[in-house]
Structures are given as C-alpha cells and as structure tokens.
C-alpha cells in the first residue's frame, strides 16, 4: 500500500510505546483541566484526578525514555544493543524528539504541582498541560506546511482530547457517588463544546495532511485514518448515550443506572485505547498523502 513504511518488531514496539505515551500525556494533561473545570467536585473525585495526573506524568517520562531507546535501536540497525548506544541516542536527542522531550519533561514536572491545593497548583499544572500539548507541535507530521496552523490545530486537539480522556476516571468514580449526577451532567454540557472543537480541529488537520478524497482511500495514511474515524464515531455514540440516557437515568435514581453508566465509561476507555493505537500507527509508519 502506498505510503506505508516497513513494519518489523521494532516498529510495532514503537507504535505501542507511542500509544502508551499518548495515553499518559492525555491523562496527565486532563487532570489539571478537570480540576480547573470542576473545583467544587467531591474531595475523593478531586483526589483521584490529582493522583492519576501525577502517576500519568511520571509514567509519561518513563515511556519517553523507552521511546528514545526504541528509536535509537531502530536507526542503529544493531538490534537491542542500539537502544543504549550513546551515539545513536545523541542523534535521537538532536532530532525533533529531543526538543519535544524537553518540553514534555518540563510539562510533566509542572503537572506534579497539581498536588498543591489552591490556585498556584492549578495554574502551574495547567501550564504543564500546555507545555506537554505544545511538545507535540515540534515533532512528526505537525512539522509540515502550513506549520503555524498545524501547530495550533495539534495543540488544541490534544487539550480538547485531554479534557475528555482525563475526566473518564473521575467521572467513573463520580457515577458511584451519591449526588454524582450533577457533576456528570455538567461535564456533558462542557464536553458538548470541547468535543465539537476536538472533532473540527482533528478533521482540519487530517484534511491538511490528505488534501483529496483519493488520498483518503488510496493510501495507508488514509485507511488508518478511516479506522480511527470509525472508532471515534463509536466513542461519540457512547458519549451521546451517556449524556442523553444514562446520566438522566442516574439523576432520576433509576435501577442500576450507576452500574450501566460506569460500564459505559469503561467502554469509552477501551475505545480511547483503540483510537490511540490507530493514531500511533498513523504517526509512526504512514506518510501523509500530501508528502507522497
């Protein structure tokens, strides 16, 4: 298929590590966003959001180090020993991934400030989220043309995605709480705006990468994107069902409404995992049709 790079074990490892990195980044960025939007949420929900953000930020750093090793091994042609080869690692450090790592590392450290209660903690960790999102504008397909527009689109896309993904665990907890429906209802209202932004900027970015309908249906990039869009459509369906059916049922204290809602949120997590794998595939082994 046109625009598909060779796939070996290292490429697969790179895709899985990159997807894990995306997940960690989204949960880390999403924690401060959740705290900023729902400052009056119950303490146990806020505690969970804080804890997950910090754990995700630290996991994100570990995954970043792992990705450096995988990339060094891939470019060395030496197999596993290339992962710790100083010269190969220095090449990776000198590449855009090195620049991104500085921003992402600084962002992850600032995310830890989410543990500080009050405005300082929120502001510092929100800045951390912005640094992590911006780090993705320095690497990969977002370095194409028009550079500025792609950078703004990717940062906006990531922050909007993080607001959603980072909220899933706190919402799951909230669904089990007495009076949790109000928070879930409020999330539904805010998310209907942020998800619209997420989709519009995502489609805009994709269009700038593809440029034509033949690019969508005739290339590896296009087909991977179609898989991603299919799963995203399923995720949007789940989200709509939660907002329109399950949250109102929870508010009305209907039987097993909390159980059904929590199951549905867990399904959202599975869908997000699939989307991240599709995205990592898209950004690792396929070439955007505009560059073919």
């Amino acid at each position, binding site marked *: 298929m046109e625009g598909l790079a060779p796939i070996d074990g290292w490429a697969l490892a790179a895709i899985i590590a990159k997807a894990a990195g995306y997940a960690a980044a989204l949960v880390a960025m999403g924690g401060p966003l959740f705290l900023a939007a729902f400052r009056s949420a119950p303490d146990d929900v806020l505690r969970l959001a804080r804890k997950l953000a910090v754990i995700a930020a630290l996991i994100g750093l570990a995954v970043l180090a792992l990705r450096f090793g995988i990339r060094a091994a891939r470019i060395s*042609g030496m197999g596993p020993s290339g992962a710790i080869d100083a010269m190969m690692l220095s090449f990776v450090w000198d590449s855009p991934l090195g620049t991104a790592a500085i921003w992402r590392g600084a962002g992850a450290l600032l995310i830890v400030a989410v543990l500080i209660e009050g405005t300082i903690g929120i502001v510092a960790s929100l800045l951390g989220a912005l640094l992590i999102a911006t780090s993705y504008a320095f690497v990969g397909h977002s370095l194409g043309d028009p550079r500025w527009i792609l950078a703004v689109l990717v940062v906006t896309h990531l922050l909007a995605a993080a607001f959603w993904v980072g909220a899933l665990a706190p919402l799951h907890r909230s669904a089990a709480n007495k009076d949790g429906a109000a928070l879930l209802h409020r999330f539904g209202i805010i998310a209907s705006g942020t998800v619209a932004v997420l989709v519009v900027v995502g489609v805009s970015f994709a269009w700038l990468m593809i440029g034509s309908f033949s690019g969508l249906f005739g290339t590896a990039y296009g087909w991977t994107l179609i898989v991603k869009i299919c799963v995203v459509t399923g995720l949007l369906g789940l989200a709509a069902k939660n907002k329109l059916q399950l949250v109102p049922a929870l508010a009305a204290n209907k039987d097993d409404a909390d159980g059904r809602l929590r199951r549905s949120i867990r399904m959202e997590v599975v869908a997000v995992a699939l989307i991240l794998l599709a995205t990592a595939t898209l950004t690792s082994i396929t070439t955007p049709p505009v560059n073919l």
Partner: protein
Amino acid sequence: MKQIILALVTTLAIAPAALAHSKAETTTPANESTVEKVEVIELRFDDPMRVTAITLTGPDGDVEIMRETGLDPVTEFRAMPSAIMPAGVYSVDWRGLSADGHPMQGTFGFTVAD
C-alpha cells in the same frame, strides 16, 4: 501568562521548518539495475536525512564501504566500496533519521556483471 504565550510563540517561530518525512529517495546504482562496476553508492533525499547505518551485502557477504558524507544530515549521501566488487547480486540496507524525527529505512539492490 502573556510572557508564557510570547515565549511559546517565539519558540515556534524560530524553530527550523522541516517537512514531514523525506520523500522517496533515488539511488546510484539505481534499484534493480545492472552495472559493470560500482565506484560510488549514492542516496538522494528531498530533505536532509541523517543516514545512521548502511550495509552493502554481496555474493560473498558484507562488503566494506567508506562514508564520504559522514553522519551529518544530508540530501545526498555518498559512500565508496573499499575494494573492487566482483560480479554478483548486491543489496544496500540503510537506516536513518529524517528531518522531522521519523526513523527511516530502505533497501535497494543491483547486479554487477562482467
């Protein structure tokens, strides 16, 4: 906050522009060609590529080659075989890092005939 935004904007503005991926390379000798002798192995890219590893394999195993272009990112990579290459089928396998940070790899082959 204004200073932070300004810093972000400045960094994005001064970061070197780089195209996503280097486009498909052309090579010397050309892929699947038959040549009488090989004086140079060349890889040409649309955007600078740091060729991090390259091997030339022939009928008697790996053939030693000497890089002319070193390890810096280049649009034209050159290497020379260190000895006369006997007739046979050869393949070149290379790895590299493109300007946007993607690990890249490629293979091409040619035949040396008397």
